[in-house]
């Protein structure tokens, strides 16, 4: 059962990230490609807190979430000044800047070598070592995340975010707080990404910059797009499906000389096909 548990635990971490990305990209219309950077900051903070034994798992998660809220608000600030493609490029820049920090700030992140030996999460003095316990932990986290997402979507705040995405000028003209709404969405997305980072670090017990680079950000985006933007179901299906894909693909017999590229190629084809024929993803709304 360990495999199933570890798969579910990992997928659930990505569901949290999917919710975060969906909130920002799908719902608030802030097209960010730097969510993996925020995710990484959460992971490094929790890892450092636990490895230096500064604090326990729960306070560490809290610190990571708060830090990521602040960070995400900061990195989405440019979206208030620049729009559309400008922000995409800014966001690319932020992601690359973060990768440079992850690789080069050796004291904080262990540099390119990463941080091995992160202790397992502990709850009230009880260390969660087995995959079953970890799955229970991530499931609780995801359930909370989904509940929050659902409540927000139904609340007036959710409707305001939708309205901003449809027509920002009209909302601003109607005197609604566009700034406040965007900042709140970014803060919430930051909290999701930060806690996902903490869970990821303690689940893997090893983190390195590879997990938080531009490719990871694009993978996240792909998960949301394939699953379906703007819906809870989409944020759940995408991560589960895309994490399973490499496992499924190992069954397809491809000559080893081209296997290296052939599997990556399938991602590309999937992206194009979804955009052309089903831009709403498997269970989402039209982007």
């Amino acid at each position: 059962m360990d495999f199933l548990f570890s798969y579910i635990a990992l997928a659930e971490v990505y569901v949290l990230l999917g919710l975060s990305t969906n909130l920002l990209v799908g719902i608030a219309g802030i097209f960010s490609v730097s969510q993996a950077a925020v995710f990484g900051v959460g992971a490094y903070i929790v890892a450092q807190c636990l490895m230096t034994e500064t604090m326990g798992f729960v306070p560490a998660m809290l610190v990571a979430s708060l830090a990521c809220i602040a960070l995400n608000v900061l990195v989405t600030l440019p979206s208030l000044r620049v729009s559309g493609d400008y922000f995409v490029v800014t966001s690319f820049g932020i992601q690359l800047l973060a990768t440079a920090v992850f690789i080069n700030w050796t004291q904080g992140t262990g540099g390119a070598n990463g941080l091995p030996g992160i202790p397992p999460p502990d709850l009230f003095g009880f260390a969660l070592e087995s995959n079953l316990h970890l799955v229970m932990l991530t499931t609780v986290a995801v359930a909370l995340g989904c509940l929050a997402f659902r409540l927000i979507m139904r609340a007036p705040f959710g409707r305001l975010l939708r309205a901003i995405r449809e027509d920002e000028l009209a909302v601003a003209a109607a005197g609604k707080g566009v700034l406040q709404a965007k900042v709140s969405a970014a803060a919430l997305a930051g909290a999701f990404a930060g806690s996902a980072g903490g869970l990821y670090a303690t689940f893997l017990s090893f983190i390195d910059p590879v997990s938080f680079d531009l490719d990871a950000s694009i993978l996240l985006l792909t998960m949301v797009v394939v699953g379906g933007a703007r819906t809870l179901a989409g944020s759940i299906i995408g991560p589960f499906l895309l994490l399973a894909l490499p496992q499924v693909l190992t069954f397809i017999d491809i000559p080893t000389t081209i296997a290296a590229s052939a599997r990556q190629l399938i991602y590309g084809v999937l992206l194009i096909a979804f955009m052309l024929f089903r831009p709403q993803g498997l269970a989402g709304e039209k982007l």
Partner: protein
Amino acid sequence: MFRSIRFGLALAAAGFLTLATASAETIKLGAILPLTGPGGLIGTQQQKGIQFALDHINAKGGVRGNKIEVVFEDNQAKPDQSILSFNKLVDLQSLPIIFTAYSGPSLAMAPLATRKKVLLVNAGAQADALAKASPFLINTLPTIGDEIAVLCQWLVKNGKKNAAILFENSAAGISGRDNYVTHFKAAGGTIVAQEPTQFGQTDFRPALLKLADAKPEVMLVSITAAAQQMAQQYKQLDLKFAVAGTTFLQDPALIADPAAEGFMHTQLQSQSPPALAAEFKQKYNAEMEFFVRQYYTASNILFAAMDKVLEEKKPITGENVRDAILKIKNFSGLVPVVFNSNTASVPFDLKVIRGGHDEQMVELKAQ
């Protein structure tokens, strides 16, 4: 909505159904390698090395009559995919032994290996942390530090006291850099400058220029790719200092390039006899390169250890095979490999590139 979720889950679940079922006389091993992505090139070489060794042992009837099979998993050199693959192989297929490569993924799997008593066999990565990561992680090659310590001593002894370091900003490159700094100073030399390059970038000119400005006598190199381009730019810029590196510089394209004339590098001894190399070439239409040889050798070490375990009428478990490796201690395949600990020591040479060939300078021994 729920129907869509169920659809997604069903598709995901389909992935877990394993197709192969083991027959009684088949011993199955696992291999978690980067078969796709930027590490795919090296991963597929490693895969061929294992496959080549498998074909040989099975042609001979297997280990004590038991056929060997290896289940390959792709981790894209990513730690999280490695964990999934590890659990898949250990949990669903109960494989006792898994080949691994790359420092990050190996370090990520090490705690799991300890907990589940599964033997990890690394024949490619050389990061220092691997030596102490897990009692269940066997490294069939020394960590980079051993090679570098000896190289630095030789260089300082031969009058190269001021060194500049060119390193790749990646796990392997930085690990090499750190070792150069430690060991070159320990040997009595001075590091006058160090400069990074980005993995995948082939423009070394700015870094080379800056290093040259510090007037070193030797440039210590720790890059894992594009060594040929580095050599060409070194030549174009008319730089005069000596160049020295580790096994990473044992790259056929580099050695064949006239720009690399006079470059020195340590090299783990790993020759393939001409007949074997020819057979490999005929089978895979590729040269039997370093990583092919490494994983071929590692596979044979495992087969020998498994033979001993079976001889003693014990079951093939990670623990038993590891103990057998440490007990046998000396393996002679393509090269002599000695296990004084989890990490093997392998003799290595100092070579110099002359006229498109690697020439032996001295044989060195790790302390």
